[in-house]
């Protein structure tokens, strides 16, 4: 028996899921082929056996107290010393805060010796610190340090893969942050510390936002089963203690409404959204910025066959700089809402062929924007990495499987740390993994029910691929009286008062992802050489002998002069661009009267005043001129404008590289 399965997530062209129908037979085949390592299996079995008794930590360890459960931070081992120092400096408020809370159970896994290696497994990492499968123990009885229960990964999923995070999360409470700008690390760190130490209280209000697009089974299921069930349970259990619950009717789940709940006047302390996450094809320029954005009610559904436009989804670009998200937590049930791996895990398993779906693994921008907001960041976002399958909601095609969601939300509302609350999904992952393994081991393939196996496999994937983005030790910060907006805004202003060390290092800062892209520019050099060698343009030279001819061939040759000039200039341009690609210069001027400004020798003159200059070289030799106001203080408003221009210049540079590669390959095709 075979049954077609549906997946969450809508492609940018308006279709859903894969470009081939995925049925239970295919998935069952995948399930039979997927092998867990011995370590992973042991860990999952232990997790299942010990679930109720230990709940992730060893006996005697209190998961709600950091001085008992411990807290640690993990960096990629390959991060340069300068980047390590810069990020550590930016995270200093958070690290010092957690160190004070965790005491001897605080750990830093930073640097080439202690950080996580590029291809290091979770088991190997733990082994280096004397730990194997089993519950977390931050400190042995004899005082030997173990590994803390709460672990914050600081790095891109290229440097520390999502798979490492999933596997570590089975035993530990794990979160991740990764920002492209140093200031964003500071904003997040400061936001958490301000929220936890200055008595911030958001109103006790949870909001449930479930989209229901026309003719769409996935969102029909989430809006009719998931959202009402969760909202009802929260209402019944928590309204006596002052919690208000907003359930947004599906027909009102448009983009404008979501703006109100995500930074607008109706922002709750806990926001739960369910719907499709948008999926862009590899190479689509929107992918890195908008992948996993939340598809809203404006999308007319799969039958309409309409490509998605920005009016139909909510992205990081839709969080304005004056949004009020400080202190909130969000749960986004959506495909790719947390991030995207480089290649499709399912495709690899099903067809033994790597199918790249992104240029590199990356974290979704919407959660990162929320966490690093300049008016104070959200504390954390729980979201799904990669494609989500419908079986998160319905088990075995009949039973609603919502207990993990329900328990997690209730734990959060009860004030449990976010990483601890997410243990319910880890329990589910462990349990289904064990069931799936047993099913496969105890029955022969001919006696197995494909539909059942497929259901287990997709459920297993769903449960595994949830990830917490943010510090796993954060909790909801609520109170009977909400901190007035003006006071919250004051907290927010604090997070943008960057210390001198951050400001000095920010323009030179290169996140590990950017370093990866610079390395990726290598092939462009090779391609440019190909073009240079192709400058003899034999084909064009042959044709040029027919100048003056009025036939089709003659007219073609008339065109060829312009064409040849273009090719020659392109070749010359590529060569110059590659020479020039080792540095990037951005200058910001202001003037009271642009009409009196002149441009001479590459610079503005006349009434123009140079206020900020950044010159970044790949070798790290950088020049930064910071604007000052009349009091000698850094002019932050202008500095922000300048930094936006630096980002713009980097985008333009990336676009240039893509154009170069594309042009070179096209030229190569023509010259053959």
């Amino acid at each position, binding site marked *: 028996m075979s049954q077609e399965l549906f997946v969450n997530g809508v492609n940018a062209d308006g279709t859903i899921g894969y470009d081939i129908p995925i049925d239970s037979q295919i998935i069952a085949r995948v399930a039979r082929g997927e092998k867990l390592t011995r370590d992973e299996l042991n860990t999952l079995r232990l997790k299942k056996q010990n679930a109720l008794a230990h709940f992730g930590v060893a006996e005697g360890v209190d998961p709600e107290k950091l001085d008992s459960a411990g807290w640690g931070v993990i960096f990629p081992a390959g991060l340069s010393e300068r980047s390590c120092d810069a990020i550590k400096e930016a995270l200093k408020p958070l690290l010092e805060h957690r160190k004070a809370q965790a005491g001897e159970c605080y750990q830093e896994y930073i640097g080439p010796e202690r950080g996580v290696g590029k291809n290091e497994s979770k088991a190997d990492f733990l082994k280096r610190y004397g730990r194997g499968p089993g519950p977390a123990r931050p400190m042995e009885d004899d005082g030997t340090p173990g590994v803390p229960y709460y672990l914050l990964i600081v790095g891109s999923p290229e440097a520390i893969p999502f798979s490492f995070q999933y596997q570590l999360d089975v035993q530990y409470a794990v979160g991740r942050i990764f920002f492209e700008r140093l200031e964003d690390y500071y904003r997040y760190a400061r936001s958490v510390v301000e929220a936890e130490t200055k008595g911030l209280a958001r109103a006790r209000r949870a909001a449930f936002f479930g989209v229901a697009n026309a003719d769409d089974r996935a969102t029909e299921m989430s809006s009719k089963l998931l959202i009402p069930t969760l909202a009802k349970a929260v209402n019944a259990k928590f309204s006596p203690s002052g919690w208000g619950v907003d359930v947004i009717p599906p027909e009102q789940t448009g983009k404008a409404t979501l703006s109100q709940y995500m930074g607008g006047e109706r922002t709750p302390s806990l926001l739960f959204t369910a719907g499709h996450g948008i999926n862009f094809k590899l190479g689509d320029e929107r992918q890195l910025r908008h992948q996993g954005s939340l598809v809203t009610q404006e999308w007319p559904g799969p039958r309409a066959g309409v490509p998605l436009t920005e009016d139909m989804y909510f992205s990081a670009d839709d969080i304005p700089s004056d949004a009020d998200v400080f202190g909130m937590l969000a749960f986004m049930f959506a495909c790719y809402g947390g991030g995207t791996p480089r290649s499709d895990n399912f495709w690899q398993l099903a067809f033994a062929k790597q199918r790249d779906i992104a240029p590199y693994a990356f974290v979704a921008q919407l959660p990162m924007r929320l966490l690093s907001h300049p008016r104070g960041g959200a504390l954390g976002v729980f979201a799904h990495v990669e494609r989500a399958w419908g079986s998160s909601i319905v088990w075995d095609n009949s039973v609603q499987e919502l207990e993990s969601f329900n328990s997690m939300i209730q734990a959060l509302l009860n004030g449990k740390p976010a990483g601890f609350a997410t243990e319910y999904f880890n329990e589910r992952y462990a349990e289904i993994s064990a069931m799936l393994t047993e099913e496969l081991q105890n029955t022969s393939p001919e006696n197995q029910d494909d539909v059942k196996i497929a259901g287990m496999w997709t459920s297993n994937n769903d449960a595994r691929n949830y990830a917490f983005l943010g510090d796993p030790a954060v909790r909801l910060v609520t109170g009977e009286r909400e901190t007035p907006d003006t006071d919250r805004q004051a907290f927010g202003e604090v997070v943008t008062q960057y210390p001198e060390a951050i400001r000095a290092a920010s323009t030179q800062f290169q996140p590990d992802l950017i370093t990866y892209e610079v390395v990726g520019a290598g092939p462009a050099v090779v391609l440019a050489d190909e073009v240079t060698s192709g400058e003899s343009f034999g084909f064009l030279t042959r044709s040029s002998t027919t100048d003056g001819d009025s036939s089709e061939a003659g007219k073609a040759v008339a065109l060829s002069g312009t064409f040849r000039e273009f090719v020659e200039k392109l070749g010359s341009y590529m060569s110059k661009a590659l020479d020039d690609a080792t540095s*990037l210069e951005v200058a910001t001027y*202001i003037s009271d009267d642009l009409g009196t*400004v002149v441009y001479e020798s590459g610079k503005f003159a006349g009434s123009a005043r140079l206020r900020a200059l950044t010159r970044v070289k790949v070798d790290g030799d950088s020049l930064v001129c910071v604007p000052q106001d009349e009091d000698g203080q850094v002019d932050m408003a202008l500095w922000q*404008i300048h930094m936006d221009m630096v980002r713009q210049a980097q985008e333009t540079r990336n676009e240039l590289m893509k154009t170069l590669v*594309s042009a070179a390959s*096209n030229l190569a095709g023509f010259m053959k």
Partner: protein
Amino acid sequence: MFEIVGADSDDPLGLWTARQDQPIHFGMDDETLASPTNTLVYRIQLPEDMAAADSAFREREESMRQSARALESIPERLESLVLHTQLQQKTSGSQPVHFGTDMLPDPEAELLSLLLVVDTGTESVPLPEGQVDFGIMDEVVLPGIEQARAQLKALLEQLNRELLHFAWIETVLADQIMARTSVRWTGHLNTIWTDGISPSHVSLHARSLRLATHSRALKVRLATTVMSGAAKISALMVNPAGALLALPLVYRYASQILAQAAELRTPQ
């Protein structure tokens, strides 16, 4: 509202309107600039109402994305067309110059038919019944090829002007210039802002920059896509100069794909 000042011809992507005024700003005299008149100015004139400005940007940004997607689809479509035609020739045992166009989309059908004209030098080709009817060959088809050739030449000339030079991008709000940027192809930016500019106006100029630099890159992609497309399609031709002869036809074909994408665009 979205203009390229100093351009001799319309933007092939349909994103910008050409204006032939001389660029008058700053008495430009950059060291890399051979002549001030060589520099194009991307000028974005926005209404004072921020919502209307935002809406204008959204519409243009969506157009740009549509164009990019349409452009990306061309190599694959041409590849399929070549395979389809070669397979048809093989199974029908016909001469290589005979291209069946039944069941093909209009742009592909027209491309194949025009290819026959330029490949064989025949100006009047009897088209099989039921296929794309171009009317009178001399009045419609040949001027069409001529026009495509002129447009491609204009695109290449525009790119020749822009390559190795920089462009100016300026954002004008309610007739007041907010900001100007000189941007080199390699990403270096020099920007001058009106003193005391608001954050919302800053973001408008950032969008202007993004739109201009992306559309500039798209034009290069269009040119190189046409080149590789001509190389692909020349596999169906007998003339040894096939790829060069096919250039204007593939450009015309690409223009049709871009125009179709613009027509299909969802109204905002």
